[in-house]
């Protein structure tokens, strides 16, 4: 789950911190800069592991602060491909199941990677989405995202509380296994994507977006998970009592 990343950076120590030990000031500055931040193509930085090398500190004309080039190692959250992780379900939406690890929230399990057959319950009012046949192949049963009028079904009409359901077939009949919020789930990491969210220049942005709509906040680091194997999914599904 966690890796050690070797990095090099120049740390600026302002003059009012010269009385402190250099190592402590540098450690604090590095943590201030990197902790809880995502570095592009590297991962979510957690905390400083150690400082490997400190080069000479320079004071440049016009700036009273000292600049030190530091070689250090940082603990970074970066699960490898196909790693098994355990997280909590944060919510369900038509995009899939959102899982969170507490310190990292942007994990999505898309509907095609759920245990099949799966459906979203309760269904959204007034939308016939039978065309949403995600992952429909002749061998596997189709994913159902059925939209019927809630009044017809006698269901509450607000779609705020939707959950994905695994329709587990046994000899006795189909059991509906709900993926409720707050449940612990074991999943496999199948994909990761880094998005560079550094600010762009003013010229293109202003022309493109109007002032009313807020810019979409994209998560800089997202993981895609899968629970379509035996053993994956809610922990309660697989514990032998």
């Amino acid at each position: 789950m966690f890796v050690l990343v070797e990095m090099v950076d120049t740390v600026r120590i302002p003059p009012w911190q010269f009385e402190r030990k250099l190592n402590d000031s540098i450690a604090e500055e590095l943590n201030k800069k990197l902790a809880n931040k995502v570095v592009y193509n590297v991962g979510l930085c957690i905390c400083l592991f150690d400082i490997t090398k400190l080069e000479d500190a320079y004071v440049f004309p016009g700036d009273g602060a000292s600049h030190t080039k530091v070689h250090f190692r940082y603990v970074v959250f970066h699960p490898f491909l196909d790693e098994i992780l355990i997280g909590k379900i944060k919510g369900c939406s038509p995009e899939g199941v959102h899982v969170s690890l507490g310190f990292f929230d942007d994990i999505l399990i898309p509907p095609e990677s759920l245990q099949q057959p799966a459906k979203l319950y309760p269904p959204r009012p007034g939308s016939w989405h039978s065309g949403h046949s995600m992952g429909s192949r002749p061998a596997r049963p189709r994913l159902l995202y059925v939209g019927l009028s809630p009044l017809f079904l006698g269901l509450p009409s607000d779609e705020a509380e939707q959950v994905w359901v695994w329709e587990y077939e046994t000899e006795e009949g189909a059991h509906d296994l709900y993926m409720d919020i707050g449940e612990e789930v074991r999943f496999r990491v199948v994909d990761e994507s880094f998005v560079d969210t550094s600010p762009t220049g003013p010229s293109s942005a202003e022309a493109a977006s109007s002032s009313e709509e807020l810019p979409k906040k994209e998560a800089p680091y997202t993981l895609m998970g899968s629970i379509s194997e035996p053993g994956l999914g809610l922990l309660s599904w697989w514990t032998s009592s």
Partner: protein
Amino acid sequence: MFSQTLNILIPRQAKSIGVQMARGARPARGPAGVLQAPGVHRGDPGVHRGARSRLWGVRRGAGSRSFSAWSSACAGDPRRRGGEDMEVKDANAALLSNYEVFQLLTDLKEQRKESGKNKHSSGQQNLNTITYETLKYISKTPCKHQSPEIVREFLTAMKSHKLTKAEKLQLLNHRPVTAVEIQLMVEESEERLTEEQIEALLHTVTSILPAGPEAEQQQNASDDVAMDEEDPA
């Protein structure tokens, strides 16, 4: 502003010194030692040129040396060049087990508790948040009760099973108790491990690694039930 003025002058200095020398005019900036050029007569084109080029050569030799020494010091100035960027030397230097990260974060928390004064400054908020959340997450896993000796013992016991580093790490972090979990973590376990080997692996894992906090709770609950049953008798 002082440095801004310098910035403008720095690149031009190498050129301007030669011109000034040729004119025999005021001494240019730079090390004094270089300015002892032989006298050059301005009016004389041929000499002038040759001399200038020679001087230029001299200038280059010494002046550029000193110039580069200073400019290399300045080149690192983040405000001048827009910052030397942070560089990632190795994005995968080592894999860390959850226990190691747990240990590191608990030590960090102790250290910061002792020093006390600067925990709540706005800059430290990110570190506080991530430390708290990660510690909370790892505390709910079996890794909480591990120790370096346990990890060492586990790895020596794993040598015989011929697993990859990633597989051993997953077993260490998750402590599987069923064969299904082993099949998830070990790639192609049906081909590489027989049933007995999987059983042996499970046995090693459960005997060496301590159970997690949830398993302990269940253990306590079942113990209580057993005690209640004994009481009426």
